[in-house]
């Protein structure tokens, strides 16, 4: 990618400070139902520009990297900055760009995968579903392979680049018998090809789909809950990503504002943000401002230690960025976790189930993103779960709503964490067990 002319153009049109990020993205996508629908290649650039004239800041995003496109982008960005009111908190664009050494985030084999090889992976996943049990078939899915290059620079002449690959596959199975049906979906997400096992994914989906034909509603009441690691990871991402962001804190939109140093969660709970873990979905050598990523301990044994910062929010508090800038579509940045990780405990899932007299092991939920991270109110609907009675699985359940105060759950109701971590959209968690949680049903 030729990007060196961007800074020159910005300066020529009157920018005094600023930075830019250019991404080149190549995607190979296969959408399928019970058969492959289409394969598509998409390829394109995005240019994100942030410039300042004095304390006036402007933003511009475009997908045109041609010389004329950059000329237009630079001119418009500066014009926007000039008409914007002064931002009293603007100190300047990031300085000190650099890279942390992070492994396992670019896979050459994945970057060079052909459409035919991708088709074979999809066929394996579909075969896994349809051969798992009679009457079960694949109904929906997608395989997405992404290769992305980033170049991040500033008007001070600094520039860094990073690149990464990712692969994501999901597949849904459906089982039908007279008077009853079931659907089950699962996914695999990785930075490299060797961690994706399409057939095994499909087979697991097929088995689970069949198994949940006999799922029933549970009655409203208090249950011990074991959240599958992926469900827990998804919930933590939704409830904490914004809450630990210095932006939400400074703007008065976080329940964690003013609580650094306070013990808010159980002492079993240590959350870290770590963008350096090899092969993790959110790992990268630098953030979207070019600041090297690092490991940040957010909650240490229940005590809130820090918020996450980009350069802008860090400047407001006269401190340094934690390497968590994420560039929004509008070209400004917001601090968010790179990989949000709940440190594991020492239970096995089997031990957690054995220790439960009346409970539900929650395998899948929908709607957790409807929870309210500002008030801390958690909401999720269990679509697939196992009913636990006297230490063993006694049936399958669906359609119950989990509701409650997230911070109370994580403080006084959490009683156990499993040994392994599971991922959901760059959030990582073990299985988590809670005592006496309200489940609502019809």
């Amino acid at each position: 990618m030729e990007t060196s002319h961007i800074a020159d153009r910005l300066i020529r049109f009157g920018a005094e400070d600023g930075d830019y990020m250019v991404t080149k993205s190549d995607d190979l996508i296969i959408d399928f139902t019970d058969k492959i629908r289409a394969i598509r290649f998409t390829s394109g650039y995005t240019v994100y520009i942030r410039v300042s004239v004095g304390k006036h800041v402007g933003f511009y995003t475009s997908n045109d990297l041609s010389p004329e496109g950059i000329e237009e982008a630079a001119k418009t960005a500066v014009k926007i900055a000039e008409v914007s009111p002064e931002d009293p908190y603007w100190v300047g664009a990031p300085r000190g760009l650099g890279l942390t050494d992070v492994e396992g985030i670019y896979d050459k084999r994945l970057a060079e995968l052909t459409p035919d090889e991708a088709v074979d992976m999809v066929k394996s996943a579909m075969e896994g579903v349809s051969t798992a049990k009679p009457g079960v078939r694949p109904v929906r899915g997608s395989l997405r392979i992404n290769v992305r290059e980033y170049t991040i620079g500033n008007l001070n002449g600094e520039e860094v680049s990073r690149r990464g690959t990712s692969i994501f596959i999901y597949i849904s199975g459906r089982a039908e018998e007279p008077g009853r049906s079931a659907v089950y979906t699962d996914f695999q997400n990785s930075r490299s090809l060797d961690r994706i096992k399409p057939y095994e994914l499909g087979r697991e989906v097929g088995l689970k789909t069949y198994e949940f034909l006999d799922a029933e509603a549970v009655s409203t009441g208090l249950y011990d809950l074991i959240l599958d690691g992926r469900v827990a990871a998804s919930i933590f991402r939704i409830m904490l990503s914004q809450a630990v962001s210095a932006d939400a804190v400074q703007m008065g939109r976080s329940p964690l504002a003013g609580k650094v140093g306070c013990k808010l969660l159980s002492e079993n709970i240590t959350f870290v943000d770590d963008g350096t873990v090899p092969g993790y979905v959110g790992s990268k050598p630098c953030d979207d401002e070019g600041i090297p990523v690092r490991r940040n301990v957010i909650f240490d044994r229940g005590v809130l230690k820090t918020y996450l910062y980009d350069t802008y929010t860090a400047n407001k508090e006269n401190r340094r960025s934690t390497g968590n800038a994420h560039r929004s579509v509008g070209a400004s940045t917001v601090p968010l976790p790179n990989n949000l990780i709940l440190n594991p405990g020492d239970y096995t899932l089997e031990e957690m189930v054995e220790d439960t007299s009346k409970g539900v092991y929650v395998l899948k939920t929908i709607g957790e993103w409807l929870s309210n991270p500002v008030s801390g109110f958690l909401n999720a609907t269990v679509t697939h779960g196992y009913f636990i009675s006297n230490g063993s699985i006694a049936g399958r359940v669906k359609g119950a709503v989990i509701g409650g105060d997230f911070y109370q759950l994580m403080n006084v109701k959490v009683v156990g964490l499993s040994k392994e971590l599971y991922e959901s959209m760059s959030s990582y968690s073990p299985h988590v067990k809670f005592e006496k949680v309200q489940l609502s049903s019809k």
Partner: protein
Amino acid sequence: MEFDWVLEEGARLGADYVSLLYQETVYESFTADNRNVREISRRRAKGLGIQVLRGGGLGFASTSTLDKDSISRCLKKALATASAVKMVSETKLTEAKPVEDRAVSRFKIDPLEVDFQDKIDLVLKANKAAFVDPRVKSATTRLAVHYDRRIVKSTEGVDVEVKCFTTGLSHLAVAYEAGVMERVLHQRAEVAGWEFIQESDWEAFTTDLSKLACKAVSCKTPPPGSYTVVVDPEIIGILLHEAFGHASEGDLVASGASILKGRLGEKVASKLVTVVDEGVVEGGYFVPYDDEGTPKRRTVVVDKGVLRSFLTSRTTAAELGIENTGNGRCQDFQNIPIVRQTNYYMLPGDMSFEELLEDVGFGIYIRGVGATGGQVDPGMGTFTFSVGPSFMIRNGELAEMVRGVVISGFILDVLKGVDAVAADLRIRTSIFGGCGKDGQIVRVGFGGPHIRVRRMTIGGGG
């Protein structure tokens, strides 16, 4: 248009069918946060998507670099993917009627021509007006302007251009009282020019939302359980769209991922329920043609409780052996059209809102202002939605406000439980978000009248 040669070149290289989508889009956003301007941004994109059919294989590629060499490479990639697909599955298309048309959404003042300064002044004023109460701890106001131009051309004689302007404003109010924080997010948008922004009272809009957040922060959540529920037009709109609309999309039906599969002609709702999908309707988004160049007219999906039609694109209509309803839509030139709703809504009845309340001894009136959305499993028919601050109903009258209300259930149970439908139809669209499916987001419209449902599960209670 300068891309006609692509159609000819595609045919020469062996494509049975070539379709192009050229798109230009501009999105301006002006954000004020806690009395200061936070971000002014402009996003501009243009590019070309090429879809080809060769020997039954459907291939696609896109490019944002529009020189001849890049487009040629893009065409060849599309043909290569078509060849990979045809080895494993065959796609058929319904016949497309040749059509040539230029459609422009209604507007008086081009919002992109309006001075940046006017937009900054408006959003800042609206944001500052929101601090009406010391309990308001945070307020974010966002003004947005969107221009979308699409040209669809195909080797079958389709040549359609659709231009659309959308404008709107959103506001997030966060209130804090006695250790409790509550947020209310709402937006208003229309397919219109700057006149929609000019003619609305945005200071009143943000003030009202702040007051609502302040009132909600001290409210209780209702005890979980089963209630008689009166549903407002926004919630019935989003509920229908998410929990029923997706299940009526032909691709989900064809693959068996819909609870409505095999149910055409069956009773799926109360006889009071009629649901349509319509491309151009007051208050909704502007879809006179879909992204395959098919005219989008009114499709009656449910007629007096009976399932009458599914929504289809050219591929799904061929697969299901039914009519193409013009619902093949894509997010942008980088995506392939898939079956999407346009403006999906319930037709009104003849009762008043008061009459809906009259018969309710104890229930809840659930409202959309401040709702955060919903999620469904169209294969199971289950849904869960977080609605805005709502009201208990006692002895036929609205009583105290409640917050944190979450509804969930099985959509067919809900629609069969509709026992009253009001006359007050309202349809809305959004400029800040849209409907997501298969990684693509498209703008939609949704709505309906107030309705009453005899039994619905209410969660919350925390």
